[in-house]
């Protein structure tokens, strides 16, 4: 039984290390419309993702947290792509990122993932997939939370 050797170079690319060392969009977001605190209890990584939503779009996205290069680079790149995205586009991002982490070759070529495509190699490291998806799980919960609260507002208005 031999398994293909996972290639280190495929995950520790310059673009990932650059986002890890100089994370973009890191810090508190005042007036956030929705925020999610996400913890990975098995490894201790934790993140607070904050979104500012207006007119069905993500006006701004920021995060605070600590974790490994994969989780932090993923959050840095994800928040960059979120700014200006519609809620639908944000949902699509979650979907395609998850597909890429499960080895979907088409998703790994999808231009809408931008720099996140550099993380495609993480799919060869099964124990690290949860690192790459930490921010996306937070995003998914944030989007669910905001649509729930919209519905609550709607139902109150009725």
């Amino acid at each position: 039984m031999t398994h293909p050797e996972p290639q280190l170079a495929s995950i520790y690319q310059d673009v990932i290390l650059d986002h890890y060392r100089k994370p973009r969009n890191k810090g508190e977001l005042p007036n956030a419309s929705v925020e999610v605190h996400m913890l990975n209890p098995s490894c201790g990584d934790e993140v607070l993702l904050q979104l500012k939503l207006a007119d069905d779009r993500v006006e701004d996205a920021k995060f605070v947290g600590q974790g490994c290069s994969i989780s932090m680079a993923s959050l840095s790149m994800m928040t960059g792509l979120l700014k200006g995205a519609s809620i639908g586009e944000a949902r699509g991002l979650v979907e395609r990122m998850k597909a890429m982490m499960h080895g979907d070759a088409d998703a790994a070529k999808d231009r809408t993932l931008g720099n996140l495509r550099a993380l495609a190699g993480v799919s060869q490291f099964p124990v690290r997939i949860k690192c790459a998806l930490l921010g996306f799980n937070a995003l998914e919960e944030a989007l669910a939370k905001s649509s729930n609260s919209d519905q609550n507002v709607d139902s109150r208005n009725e």
Partner: protein
Amino acid sequence: MPRTVTGIDPTVLREEFPALHQVVNGDPLVYLDNAATTQKPRAVLDALRHFYEHDNANVHRGIHELSRRATDAFEAARIRVASWVNAPNASEVVWTRGTTEGINLVAYAWGLSNLRKGDEIVVSVMEHHSNLIPWQLVCGHTGARLRHVDIDDQGRLRLDQLEDVLSDRTRIVSIGHVSNSIGTINPVREIVDLAKTVGALTVVDGAQGAPHLPVDVQALGCDFYAFSGHKMCGPTGIGALWGKRELLDSMEPYQGGGEMISVVRLEESTWAEVPHKFEAGTPNIAGAVGFAAAVDYLEDVGRDAIRRHEVELTRHAMDRLGELPWIRIFGPPEPEARSGVVAFEVEGAHPHDVATILDSEGIAIRAGHHCTQPLMRRLGVSATSRASFYIYNTEAEIDRMVRALHTVHGIFGTHA
């Protein structure tokens, strides 16, 4: 070259461990995650196989031959495992799933009926979650209060603070014999003596003590000592709790079921004698047999030899890591003050990235909080990398780890 001075030649000894002989990610496996679990020698694997192939039956129930053999093997194993910690009587040794269950057993079976509001339980900031959460739960049930003792900046328990925390409200002091995260060996005898001055019971989490140090519960003077088979070459899912007879006798059962009863009526029942009172249900019989085989194996290797070998490996690792300015080692600076555990931080690199890079070269270490989140907070980190050694590890393996850490530094170092 093997170090004959230690009395262990790991290059010979490792021949007995089938799992060590494999290629992982293109390189021969270097297994340095022994504080999590150890590999198993053939003697233990053979004992498990022999039991299931020849003697398998339920214990203390049957009249037939196989049941008699299984019961004999199971009770002989209890005597063997009891001897490893010098328990005065094997009837004081209760089989458990592991250290965690042993501590939960004391917390519930003693704590629920003896703790009252205002009582205090004392632990340290370096406890494994398994010696913290059971007490938190029992405090929730009883209104007792959990207090903790800090460590100094070199990872040693603050005995002065223990003295301050102890009072006539203290009912239990529960302390790890050895820190699984940073390897600190705690002065159990001194802790027990201090606890006795206020009449408190002492519980020792021996998960990292029994596998690595010669343990004598009578000399330690504690009231309970819990340990696990799988951290000392035995199978997973089997452990032992030693407790003083009069305490075990006074305690209520931990779980109810078969095996632990004397007379059962629909309304109420009476309990079997200690230790069976605490062993409801069909126990891990093969596990107990395998645990005893592990004790036989380790007795052959020699307790003092095990300890000397680990100190040598720890010294070698600390010397080699100490040469690297981009590595910070946690815990006591003297190898003699630790078990074979070296936790460290690589500048600029998260422990998960360290572990992934080492794994890509076939080297298994642990990265994370090691089930000691309060200790991580105390050390000011979210996680550490940890190499932990056992009888079959060699200095050459540590050198391979150090070389791989240079790869980590090449990727994550601040110069890059």
